[in-house]
């Protein structure tokens, strides 16, 4: 029987759709299967209370690769920004917030020296982020294995590091593998400012500011602010779902077939070769190539099955650290809330609650022992300020990331989700007195909810911690870091692969290039 499709992609998250787009453009007949009723994966907009919609998982866009936007003509497929270049306000209960922009920071309590240090620090970190970003655009090189393209990638990476000049190179080699806390202590004075920077280094991760690797995760975040992509933080009109809607339209225009509400129950193998997938309804769909946008543990253990993997490889997959520590809070509000010291025209910005590095570190400490933070750190947005399409006229919606909420809560989440939601709301109330009276509906997604709704094992945004031992050629695991896997015809294209998540789209794009090349160079 001849195959109806060349390629089947499991999961219509943004990376799956990006990959589908490029593969279809290469002339393949592509089918995308999505278990949920709509496309989008973790980049969706959905209603959480009657008439109130919100970006249910990821809520700000700052890493989406501009090459993908133009290659796939996402703007002509309906992608529009409701707001661009959002400023960050680091809130304070006394109203003395800090305002952080790309190159400048302001705030009453700041010393002139801190402002200068901030500018120099951001410039330096952006120079380092540029190196990181360079690695994002291509498949991670395989070491030792003598592949010309990989050797070129390594040589070019080595060259860019050398070309930074001696001081920068030394500084990068010094701080690249350590924690943001120590780095910030070196130059900055103001505790509030240190915390605002430290917060960005730990957002979405299983790290505290004193955990080594937090410099890397800070650079990861900054990589969205270098090169042609310096618009920093944006909010798509219609929420994050509009990014994936545009990707879907673009894919369909390229001839991709997308079937939603169809879960894949397993990947079909002929010994060590992929021959298609079986859906939960028992339907067998044949194809020579299967690309999984699911996380690596789901892909290898649930869909392939450990018994079809070599022991060493399977052990590596088992060891991937991917337990989420961030929860998501959604509030339906009857009116625009008032945050102490924040004017109403500033409310559309990104607001964070992170008063000091010690506060962050202590919030993190609880999570090490399977407890949630009793004084959490938050990233808050009120997307309805820029985008009334999300809410009934005059009403508002608040969307916040709340950290830390460990996936493996010792008591289990069932009885505790409500408690943690109240803690988060109480924390916001400290900064926005009276907001509680405006809440007409609320929802908290714990990592366990994120796991079940978005089908991410462990509920981790990045499908795996973003740390040096799970970075580049080690991501998600050696043997599958170049998007191909030990099973012939099976590829990965999700955030678990290089360069990771954050609605960047590059994992999908790089994977498609690898598939089109057939691994040859």
């Amino acid at each position, binding site marked *: 029987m001849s195959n109806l499709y060349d390629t089947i992609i499991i999961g219509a998250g943004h990376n799956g759709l990006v990959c589908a787009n490029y593969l279809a453009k290469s002339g393949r007949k592509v089918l995308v299967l999505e278990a949920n009723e709509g496309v989008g994966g973790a980049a969706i907009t959905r209603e959480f209370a009657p008439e109130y919609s919100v970006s249910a998982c990821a809520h700000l866009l700052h890493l989406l690769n501009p090459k993908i936007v133009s290659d796939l003509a996402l703007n002509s497929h309906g992608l529009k920004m409701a707001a661009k270049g959002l400023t960050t306000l680091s809130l304070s209960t006394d109203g003395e917030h800090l305002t952080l922009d790309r190159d400048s920071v302001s705030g009453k309590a700041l010393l002139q020296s801190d402002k200068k240090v901030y500018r120099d620090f951001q410039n330096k970190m952006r120079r380092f982020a540029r190196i990181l970003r360079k690695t994002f655009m291509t498949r991670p090189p395989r070491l030792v294995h003598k592949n010309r393209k990989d050797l070129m990638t390594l040589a070019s990476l080595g060259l860019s590091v050398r070309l930074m000049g001696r001081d920068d190179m*030394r500084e990068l*080699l010094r701080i690249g593998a350590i924690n943001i806390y*120590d780095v910030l202590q070196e130059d900055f004075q103001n505790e509030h400012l240190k915390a605002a920077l430290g917060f960005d280094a730990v957002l979405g991760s299983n790290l505290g500011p004193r955990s*080594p690797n937090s410099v890397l995760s800070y650079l990861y975040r900054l990589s969205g602010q270098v090169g042609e992509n310096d618009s920093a933080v944006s909010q798509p009109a219609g929420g994050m779902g509009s990014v994936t809607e545009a990707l879907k339209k673009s894919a369909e225009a390229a001839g991709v077939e997308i079937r939603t509400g169809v879960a894949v129950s397993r990947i079909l193998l002929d010994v060590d070769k992929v021959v298609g997938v079986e859906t939960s309804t028992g339907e067998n769909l044949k194809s020579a190539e299967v690309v999984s946008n699911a996380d690596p543990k789901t892909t290898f253990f649930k869909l392939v099955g450990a018994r079809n993997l070599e022991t060493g490889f399977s052990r590596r997959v088992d060891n991937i650290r991917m337990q989420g520590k961030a929860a998501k809070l959604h509030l339906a509000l009857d009116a625009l809330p008032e945050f102490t010291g924040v004017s109403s025209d500033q409310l559309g910005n990104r607001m964070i609650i992170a008063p000091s590095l010690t506060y962050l570190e202590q919030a993190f400490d609880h999570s090490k022992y399977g407890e949630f933070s009793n004084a959490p750190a938050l990233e808050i947005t009120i997307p309805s300020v820029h985008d009334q399409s999300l809410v009934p006229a005059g009403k508002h919606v608040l969307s916040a990331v709340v950290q830390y909420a460990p996936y493996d809560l010792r008591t289990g989440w069932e009885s505790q989700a409500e408690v943690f939601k109240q803690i988060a709301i109480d924390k916001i109330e400290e900064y926005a007195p009276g907001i509680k009276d405006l809440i007409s509906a609320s929802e908290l997604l714990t990592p366990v909810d994120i796991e079940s709704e978005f089908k991410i094992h462990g509920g981790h945004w990045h499908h795996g911690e973003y740390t*040096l*031992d799970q970075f580049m050629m080690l991501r998600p695991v050696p043997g599958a870091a170049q998007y191909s896997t030990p099973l012939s015809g099976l590829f990965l294209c999700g955030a678990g692969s290089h360069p990771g998540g954050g609605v960047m789209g590059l994992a999908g794009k790089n994977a498609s290039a690898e598939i089109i090349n057939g691994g040859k160079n």
Partner: protein
Amino acid sequence: MKKYDAIVIGAGHNGLTNAAYLAKSGMDVLVVEKNPWIGGASVSRSLHEGWTYSNCSYVCSLFRPEIYRDLELARHGLQVIPYEGGLTFMQDGDYFGNYSDHERHHRELARHSKRDANAYDRFSADVSRQTRLIRPFLMRTPPDPTSFKPADVMELVHMLKTYWDLGEDILYDTMRFWTMSVGDFLDEYFESDVIKAHMAGSGIIGTALGIYSPGTAYVLLHHYMGDVDGSIGSWGFARGGMGSIAKALAGSFQSFGGEIMTDAGVDKILVKNGETKGVVLENGDEHYADIVVSNLDPKRTFLKIMDENDLPPDVVKKAKNFKIRGSSGKLNISLDGMPTFRGIEKGHELLKADFHFIDSMERMERAYDDWKNGTWSKDPYVDTLIPTQVDPTMAPPGKHMMTVFVQYCPPKVNGEEWTDELRDEFGQTVINQIAEYSPDFKDLILHAEIRTPRELENEVGLTEGNIFQGELTMDQLLFNRPFPGYAQYRGPVKGMYMSGSGTHPGGGVMGAPGVNSAREILSDLSRKNVTPEAFSDE
């Protein structure tokens, strides 16, 4: 005043090693030491009549065998007695024993977890592979990766090639190992909490990080890469205490004509026209030499005994930012007899090794949280030994000496300086923990010396009492140690060198920084290299 060829500041083991090699090459060398005794942190002291304490460092493994043989330290009286095994007491009355006999160890592991017993061989093979990899680099000068000098480029290529030659899979494992936390690393092999806790201790000793802080797997390696008589990973006692190492080194140094001056603290390194000229002692005496080697830690070297005006501003800044955080304490205890321990019979061979009272990873991590929050661990990780069971020279017959290393103990308590009351309270915390497992322990105590980072700093001169002269984190290892650009033992002033543990490959009574710095000095002076080559393990 007499002019020497070289002056070495600080008679710690690295200073003495460095001085011995310079003297061996025929140079006229003076070692100046602030204390009335020599040894720095490898010292034996009699603080209670009849007892000898290794009151700082207390066990020996990392000391480079190349030096031991080359300087004929055995002839100068150094004898290392290996001890075997290890023991962790559990809260439920059981214990986990670490036996050196493979079969017996397997049975003990299996008693706690069959799966872990099976994983152990894989674990040992993986760790010893990393150990074998790093050992040859201990006695080599780190290359400067930013330099285009042939020597640096060649060394860098040599280093990369060593790793490249591992093959793809092992190279990836190695990259992961270097960047992981000891907790995550152990989680990949073992399920039993006590087994993990027993092994994780090596990842945090002397380190201001927790077991789940990435980078601590390397610290574990730092404690596994030594050997006693070629038995890699083994530890031993220096007979007569750790001071015997310093004594033997001093004997060797003096046999080459070297001179040691004690009670001679250095006030300043003399610098004229960008070149070192000698030292000024605290008593005002000046001694001259064109080569001045500081064995002090980088902060003391650059911020205390050098004039800021003699240094480039970047060095001053780097020295200020150098991480040398105090995180350990120590108790040295004179005992009226051998204490008994709950759950293990008297005279059990495991009591001759190091024992611990923390049986879970969570307790270890919480011990770190206390330190982060500014106080000593209320349930600390302790590394306890009673060396008098195998070395009777350290206490009167029938009596014992106990050495208790404590992780974590902060340099200040909640931001305030230590007081004697707080110090005693810290000591009580440790004593109480041990007493929970040893009912007669408290009654046997005749004398206890309690050391916090304050005592260690005041006595030895290690800033904040950091036992490694600077943390072993990625920003301070290899070509970053002590600072990028100054990792080849040369200071920023002509004629000035560093030989302490603050340089590659770090502390642990290794002697390697002392040798490596001597080799660089001899090379700069175009003298014949008299330092030994690194041994190959093959």
